[in-house]
């Protein structure tokens, strides 16, 4: 790893990271702060849930437990919004952290310095991992604070499971974005494909959960393999899926790394 490049990448992305962290933390705190109001309406909310179409509730990971415990309440928002938000941040940063140099013409500057391409790509991936860890850990810390502040009898085991699963999912999407960006034109705006990939995966899983007839669709989505909602009462880390997804993510990073070593910088 090249320390000069590593710190420069962190500095270059600090504003973007700060903005996304603030959004995710504010959102986390906002949803946890409204939980006490919902929990006071427990019976009414349970009644309301029973009027919802089962498919709809299943797709969004809701059941009667959603409103009766803070972990159930948090898990619904965590699964739908927070992983999507962090996923979009991480994947869009992953897609641009290397490709941006080529798009902006700065690759010519960087690649004519006495640093190997392999070192450059590895360093940028390390910086990407650091940025992702900063956003994710900050969100997790504020979620813990919010849980303690606005709820009681928190099922911390469920919380840890959700966050382990979430981190694996986000890492998977980030690696996929790095791989895709290495094959796409640097002039392309990556945001569209990145948002498409994450939302597409999410909705594929939601549709598969909602309708038994198309449940097979879920196999194509990484969301299918890692449960994020605590509606089922029990929630444990699915280590098998985690390991498989991490291995696929590492292979995608390796393939993206190899691809970047071969690219011609035409100018």
């Amino acid at each position, binding site marked *: 790893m090249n320390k*000069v490049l590593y710190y420069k990448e962190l500095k270059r992305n600090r504003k973007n990271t700060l903005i996304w962290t603030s959004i995710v933390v504010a959102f986390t705190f906002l949803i946890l702060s409204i939980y006490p109001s919902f929990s006071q309406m427990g019976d009414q909310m349970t009644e309301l849930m029973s009027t919802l179409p089962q498919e709809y509730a299943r797709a969004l990971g809701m059941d009667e437990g959603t409103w009766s415990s803070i972990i159930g309440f948090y898990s619904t928002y965590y699964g739908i919004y927070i992983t999507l938000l962090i996923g979009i941040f991480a994947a869009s940063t992953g897609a641009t952290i290397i490709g941006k140099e080529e798009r902006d013409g700065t690759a*010519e*500057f960087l690649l*004519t310095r006495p640093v190997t391409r392999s070192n450059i790509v590895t360093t940028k991936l390390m910086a990407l991992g650091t940025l992702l860890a900063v956003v994710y850990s900050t969100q997790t810390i504020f979620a813990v604070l919010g849980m303690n502040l606005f709820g009681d009898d928190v099922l911390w085991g469920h919380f840890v499971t959700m966050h382990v699963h979430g981190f694996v999912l986000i890492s998977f999407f980030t690696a996929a974005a790095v791989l895709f960006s290495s094959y796409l034109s640097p002039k392309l705006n990556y945001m569209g494909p990145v948002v498409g990939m994450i939302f597409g995966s999410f909705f594929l899983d939601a549709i598969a959960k909602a309708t038994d007839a198309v449940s097979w669709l879920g196999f194509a989505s990484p969301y299918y393999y890692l449960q994020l909602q605590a509606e089922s009462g029990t929630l444990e880390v699915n280590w098998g899926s985690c390991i498989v997804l991490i291995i696929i993510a590492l292979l995608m990073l390796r393939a993206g790394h190899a691809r970047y070593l071969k690219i011609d910088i035409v*100018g």
Partner: protein
Amino acid sequence: MKAIEFNGLTKFYGKHRGIESIEFSVTKGEIFGFIGPNGAGKSTAIRTLLGLLHPSGGSAAILGHDVVNEGVQARLKVGYLPAEVDFYPEMTSRELLQYHAGLYGLENGDIKIEELAEYFELALDRPIDDLSYGNKKKCAIIQAVLHEPEVLILDEPTGGLDPFMQNRFFELMESLNKKGVTVFFSSHVLSEIQRMCDRAAVIRDGKITAIEDISSLLSKQMKKVRLVLKKKAELSLPDGFQNHHSTGTKHNFDYVGPTEVLIRWLAEQDLVDVVLTEPDLESIFMNYYQR
């Protein structure tokens, strides 16, 4: 030791030729020109030399280091001034140069940055995005020489610089060359090549068509001659004259050959006026390639 060696270097973009079997070398301490029309392959050769492009065949070396297998060692000793300046727009010149110094592991980077910025009158603390093209070029020149490279690779180096700064740039290059720095100089501007270079290679359609001493290249250089005679007369044109057109006492023609032969011939004519002009580089190329 050779500063730069091209050993059959070839680069194809798919089926399209970039450069083909380029073969020449630049001696250490030399100022070497690289001349060719647009699209001839100058930038492809330079970019392949610097590891931005992967060669399709052949090899190249800088100070004995193969540019593919020992690219880091080769680039460690090279300063590169690109034709188009694309730097990080969010950085100031100082930040960019400090970043550059960091990547080269320079210890006294800040002092040298100040010295060179003063020499080129560059404001260091303005964002690069706010700089004029000329000031960006100054920043590019500073980053090319900051780490005291042994070999300088300059691609159209003076574009965007005013004549005063061009002069400073050439003075700096000459002083670095006196200290032993090799300069590989790609340019369209013939007067720059004439001023700076000992030898030059001519590239056309991706292939080297000539490698000449500059004095030899100049002796082959065409001059446009316009003269007015006192009386209408038939001219006896010696070798080296071509494209002769005349209207009354006015004659226009091109001349290729030693300048002293032309001057002696002109002295023998009964002249009212004479104008000698240096043709543009393209005319010289056309003439050169036709020979």
